[in-house]
């Protein structure tokens, strides 16, 4: 078991496991965000819970960060190794004849998503961390000294979607995420060795997931942009 990450199959397995983890996270994330569309209060409460619960903050958040970093670092490592395996390229190559664009460009979609994550961290996460752990304000209130001011999360969210440029970037990134997932979802099953009749019937679901989840994110962004 020790040497498993040294093998190509083992690396792909780890890649798939981190992908599954991230896909579950995405579902959670989109569910919470979606509450913002119909209930400010529910969204605020859930955000506050996620933002202050020690288990979520102390245990799950580090695992998530590790998962994200692992996934992209491993992705780069694999891509580097794969490029090394062909020293001379073809003068004429028509890969579109045998494989989909998305499956061949996971690195590209991955890099775009990574850039988006940087923006996302800058937008929300660094701000959150600063407020909570640098300034020490764990109240989650608009005004920490005024309990009547209400939770700040909903307002902050709506704030971010005022700029059409940001919403545009946001939308493009999620289209890329969708493409990434269109290949990644099934690919992860294949990498862990699941390719039986049950998994094959997941194919339809994988499309729903890969298009649905990013679409919801985009919808949420547009919703707040236009209702602001």
């Amino acid at each position: 078991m020790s040497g498993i990450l040294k093998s190509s199959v083992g690396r792909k397995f780890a890649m798939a496991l981190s992908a599954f983890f991230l896909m579950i996270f995405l579902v959670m994330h989109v569910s919470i965000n979606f509450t913002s569309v119909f209930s400010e209060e529910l969204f605020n409460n859930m955000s506050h819970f996620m933002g202050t619960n020690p288990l979520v903050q102390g245990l799950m958040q580090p695992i998530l960060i590790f998962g994200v970093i692992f996934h992209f670092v491993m992705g780069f490592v694999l891509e580097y190794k794969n490029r090394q395996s062909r020293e001379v390229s073809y003068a004429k190559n028509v890969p579109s004849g045998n494989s989909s664009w998305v499956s061949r460009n996971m690195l590209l979609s991955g890099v775009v998503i990574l850039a988006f994550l940087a923006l996302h961290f800058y937008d929300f996460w660094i701000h959150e961390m600063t407020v909570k752990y640098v300034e020490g304000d764990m109240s989650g209130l608009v005004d920490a000294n005024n309990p009547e001011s209400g939770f700040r999360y909903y307002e902050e969210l709506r704030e971010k979607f005022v700029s059409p440029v940001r919403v545009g970037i946001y939308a493009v990134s999620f289209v890329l995420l969708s493409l990434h997932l269109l290949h990644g979802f099934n690919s992860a099953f294949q990498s862990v060795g699941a390719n039986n009749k049950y998994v094959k019937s997941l194919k339809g679901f994988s499309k729903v997931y890969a298009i649905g989840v990013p679409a919801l994110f985009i919808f949420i962004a547009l919703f707040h942009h236009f209702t602001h």
Partner: protein
Amino acid sequence: MMNLTLKIWRQKNANDKGKIVDYPVSGISPDMSFLEMLDVLNQELIEKGEEPVAFDHDCREGICGTCSLYINGRAHGPQTRITACQLHMRSFNDGDTIYIEPWRAKAFPVIKDLIVDRSSFDRIQQAGGFISVNTSGNTQDANAIPIEKEHADKSFDAATCIGCGACVASCKNSSAMLFVSAKVSQFALLPQGQVEATDRVLNMVKQMDAEGFGNCTNTGACEVECPKGISLENIARMNREYLAASLKG
């Protein structure tokens, strides 16, 4: 009759840099096989006192796995489920330009022109692609162990791999997963293959990695280009076998 322009990779030997050279050919019948068209070119080159284009070929009926041409950007040419030797000129049109290149992979170094060294495939098989049973004449009766037809058929389907390397050539990562998994699957599906299953998959994958093939990113190009239509299911099966074996070992 067709007139064509061929753009062929010429490389004197492993150390030569190599380049694409243009050759016009004329009077090509659509009933010719692709390799027969190359024969025509070579006869013309010989008549002119030039060196013919070296390419690997032997059975010319799609089963030995020797021919290995990357034709117009596709392994074994534009048609699927066939080898280059089964490709006929009726798949092309008069006036076409056709690129002909060798398989490209670090693990398949060029020997000359369109010929590559695929001994890495042999070494993978030597690492575990067998069932250790000596020849004795006292082996148990062939019908002593019934095998479910579905398993026997799937094992056969995996075993039809001809080892041509089209999977590696067409994979953007030069991965040999389809080739290796076909052999692992053939034995994994048979009761006779169970005894050595753990070592087999671990050793074969280890050798595959050592040869410098890339990782599988599940693009599925190999399955499309495989002349025998070896299924991606085999790769999943090998992943399973490998993970189970890793946990055991």
